[in-house]
């Protein structure tokens, strides 16, 4: 009996024995919470178990020397038993990442537990379970756990709750859930970019396999062709020039053959080199383009949460600059590197076949250079990553100020913005200086090495010639090869910095590509079809960072009903709307549309049924017609005009120089706030959504325009489930029901009259605005229109 009931609620392994030994045989465990903080908010371990008869709390003795990371065997947790007869309720609070459960009776606080929010879900479950069983005890309709059936009945809600959680987990894929959680916690991967990261580009190179192979073969061939001329200097020297010096005639026939060979090799190298560069550049450009598109595609699919935490400038550099850098790396530097590498290997082989001893001496500096590269590489890499970040910082300043230029100018902060830019630029300079010191030292050192190498070859070569071990021709050929060889080595060493830059870029691109949306698509989506438009929020809670923005909210909106959301700013109205649009996912609870959890719909599919009118309407660069048909690009001109008419936008559009073909800028320059708003209303009307959300749609315009917009909105609202947020209560006169929110909680709901009669939160808000109106503030008009509308 005990075992079966316990098994429904998961008890941590190491507590299991302890819990079992303390429970009586007929007791049912309702909920378990691992408490990880003590009263002074130091990390510790403890357990709180709610059964139907009592609360059992195990806690570690609060001593400074107790190491909380040690396991349970070392210490004996203290057990405190709080029977249900105390008639105490559990309250749940949380603030700044710390949750609190307190047990309070009518006079005082009896006990208190603190924990981090990782355990919050369980804490709430425990609180609910305990308070429910307390209710039951008080009413004594069922004697606590006196019979088996009673025990089962009590277990049911908890059981159901856990099953529901499992279902959600299944829905989203537990891995996704885990990942999205870690993403939400901002666990960024801060490991330095590894050169191996470049291998991940293979995913994008794969479609161009054949062309890459052809390019590689061409590289081999063209490199081989460039190696022919130095080889020909050998017979030219030994068979032509030296015999001539010794008094023999020059055989023109021979010379002609050699010279012809030189010419052919040069022409071959030229044409092959051209072809290879062209093919590989073509491929790398395509790889770069694919990379850009997929990064952007992916970015578009990420949730608003991602954009909230990122800065425009940073993302712009990543997608624009980094991909370009990777592309240049692939088409130029990597190609050069490959050519150089092939060249070095081939040269080495040729040198060894001509004369192994001389070849060995020639290759002597190679290990030193390799070592040098290795040492410098790590430092350079870190430096380049830093440069990237600084660069983003610079673009961020630009991306911040340019859209906000009106604010900057209005507050006369040009100087300050300049200073900010200068500061970022100075930072950029400092970081670059540090890298350049290292870099500037590196390059001449490699050159020095090559010079020294050349010296050694000369010395050893002359000695060998003197000993008649090698001919003058061989030495000349060697020197000719070495000239190429070392310059190659020098340019090859440069690849280090380019590789590091590209690796850093790749890392930053893949950071976007690897980011999993915190609003994941379901594995097995439900098709949205013929929706009624009933929205139901149950036990909805939402946490932004460690702030609880929405607290356990329950709300059902009937199809076609218009709800007005009222409350002070910061009361969670906009968040609620964002949750309904699924810009964010709830921390706890669920949102349902026609009884289906919205997390089971495909995002795009779901959102086509939502029309959104925002306070600051955003117009894209394009014509007015394009902007109206943004949500439905196939719309006919007739439909566009009909939507504009309904939005009371038709006439002002006709007055523009090019009517519907007029171009509007990024932020809709040239149009007033009210005009832009009506265009955005037309946009929402055109997609004919079942659900309509208006977030302060009229608060940025004057009263006269508001009336015009109000008319437009009245057209829009008809027959749709509507949620309207408004600071001005007058805007909500058409609402069927008003919901008043305060600090993330729904405090009142009902019609205007009912709420006024109640003299509660709504009444206070209303009085405040009426008072403002009496003072002759701009709200005067609306108040009267409001009164006409409602009373």
């Amino acid at each position, binding site marked *: 009996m005990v075992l079966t009931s316990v098994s429904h609620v998961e008890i941590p392994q190491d507590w299991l024995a302890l819990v079992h030994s303390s429970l009586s045989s007929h007791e049912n465990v309702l909920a378990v919470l691992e408490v990880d903080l003590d009263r002074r908010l130091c990390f510790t371990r403890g357990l709180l178990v709610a059964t139907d008869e009592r609360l059992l709390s195990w806690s570690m003795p609060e001593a400074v020397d107790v190491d909380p990371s040690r396991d349970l065997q070392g210490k004996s947790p203290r057990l405190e038993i709080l029977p249900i007869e105390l008639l105490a309720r559990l309250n749940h609070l949380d603030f700044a990442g710390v949750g609190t459960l307190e047990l309070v009776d009518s006079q005082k606080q009896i006990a208190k537990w603190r924990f981090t929010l990782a355990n919050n879900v369980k804490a709430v479950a425990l609180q609910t379970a305990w308070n429910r069983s307390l209710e039951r005890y008080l009413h004594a309709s069922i004697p606590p756990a006196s019979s088996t059936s009673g025990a089962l009945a009590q277990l049911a809600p908890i059981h159901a709750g856990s099953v529901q959680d499992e279902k959600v987990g299944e829905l989203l894929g537990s891995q996704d859930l885990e990942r999205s959680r870690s993403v939400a916690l901002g666990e960024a991967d801060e490991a330095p970019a590894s050169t191996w990261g470049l291998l991940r580009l293979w995913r994008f190179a794969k479609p161009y396999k054949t062309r890459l192979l052809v390019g590689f073969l061409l590289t081999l061939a063209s490199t081989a062709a460039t190696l022919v001329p130095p080889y020909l200097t050998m017979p030219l020297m030994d068979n032509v020039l030296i015999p001539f010096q010794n008094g023999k005639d020059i055989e023109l026939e021979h010379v002609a053959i050699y010279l012809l060979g030189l010419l052919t090799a040069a022409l071959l190298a030229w044409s092959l080199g051209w072809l290879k560069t062209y093919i590989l550049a073509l491929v790398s450009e395509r790889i770069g383009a694919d990379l850009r598109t997929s990064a952007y595609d992916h970015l578009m699919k990420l949730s608003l949460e991602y954009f909230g935490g990122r800065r425009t400038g940073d993302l712009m550099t990543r997608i624009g600059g980094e991909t370009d850098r990777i592309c240049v790396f692939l088409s130029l530097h990597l190609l050069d590197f490959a050519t150089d590498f092939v060249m070095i290997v081939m040269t080495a082989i040729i040198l060894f076949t001509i004369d192994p001893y001389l070849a060995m001496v020639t290759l002597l500096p190679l290990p030193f250079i390799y070592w040098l590269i290795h040492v410098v590489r790590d430092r350079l890499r870190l430096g380049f990553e830093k440069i990237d970040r600084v660069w983003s910082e610079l673009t961020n300043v630009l991306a911040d100020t340019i859209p906000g230029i009106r604010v900057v100018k209005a507050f006369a902060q040009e100087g300050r913005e300049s200073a900010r830019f200068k500061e970022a630029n100075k930072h950029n300079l400092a970081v670059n200086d540090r890298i350049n010191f290292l870099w500037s030292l590196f390059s001449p050192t490699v050159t020095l090495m090559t010079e020294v190498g050349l010296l050694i070859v000369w010395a050893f070569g002359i000695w060998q010639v003197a000993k008649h071990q090698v001919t003058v021709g061989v030495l000349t050929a060697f020197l000719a090869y070495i000239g190429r060889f070392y310059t190659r080595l020098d340019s090859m060493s440069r690849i280090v910095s380019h590789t590091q830059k590209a690796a850093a870029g790749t890392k930053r691109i893949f950071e976007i590509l690897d980011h999993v949306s915190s609003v994941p698509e379901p594995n097995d989506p439900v098709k949205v079809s013929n929706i009624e438009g009933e929205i139901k929020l149950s036990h909805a809670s939402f946490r932004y960072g460690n702030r609880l923005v929405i607290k356990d909210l329950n709300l059902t909106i009937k199809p076609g009903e218009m709800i007005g959301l009222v409350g002070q700013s910061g009361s969670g109205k906009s968040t609620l709307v964002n949750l309904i649009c699924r810009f964010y996912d709830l921390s706890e609870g669920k949102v349902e549309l026609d009884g289906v959890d919205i997390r089971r719909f495909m995002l795009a599919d779901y959102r086509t049924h939502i029309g959104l009118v925002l306070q600051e309407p955003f117009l894209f660069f394009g014509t007015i017609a394009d902007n109206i048909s943004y949500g439905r690009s196939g719309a006919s*001109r007739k439909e566009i*005009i009909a939507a504009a008419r309904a939005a009371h936008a038709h006439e*002002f559009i*006709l*007055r523009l120089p*090019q*009517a*519907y*073909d007029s171009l509007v800028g990024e932020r809709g320059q040239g149009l007033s706030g009210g005009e832009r708003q009506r265009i955005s209303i037309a946009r929402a009307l055109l997609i004919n959504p079942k659900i309509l959300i208006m977030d302060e749609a009229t608060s940025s315009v004057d009263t006269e325009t508001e009336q015009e917009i109000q008319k437009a909105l009245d057209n829009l609202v008809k027959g749709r489930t509507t949620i309207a947020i408004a600071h001005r209560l007058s805007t909500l006169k058409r609402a069927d029901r008003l919901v008043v929110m305060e600090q993330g909680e729904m405090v009142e709901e009902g019609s205007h009259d009912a709420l006024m009669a109640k003299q509660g939160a709504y009444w206070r808000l209303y009085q405040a605005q009426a008072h403002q109106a009496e003072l002759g503030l701009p709200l005067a008009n609306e108040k009267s229109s409001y009164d006409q509308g409602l009373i």
Partner: protein
Amino acid sequence: MSDTHVLTHHSVENGPQDFKLWSDAFGIWHLSLGDESHEHVIAVRAFPISAPKDGVSILSREGKELLWLERLTDVPSEAQHNIELCLQNREFMPEITKLDAVNSFVTPSRWSVQTTRGATELLLKGEEDIKRLSANTLIVSDAYGVQFLIKDLPSLDRQSRKFLDRFL
């Protein structure tokens, strides 16, 4: 335009079936709709660039829509002619057919152009004044706010395209 044009009309979406549009001796356009009569009316196209033959609206001086014509081709040719006249009154968007010369490839640049409304010169202040309406349609705003249209980029001659290319 002192003579009076009387029109009868079929497909009007809002407004009465019959309307009269005429201009008086002062060149002022009048519209009478049933019993109402309006002075100083103007005619505008809803899509002057993308669909000039679709959707023409006649507005009052205050900018209120008086009459909406779904398609210009639906009205009798005489009425059509009249509306065209009224439209011309206000419409000015020369279409560039040829670029003869530009004095500099750096802005500000003075262009000599042939347009549907004759040869002219325009001063381009900056490259951002050339706006792309669609892939092949451009609007060039000159320093004085005149908007020139380039309807179909590929249909221009080679020389013109070469000039334009330097600014795009």
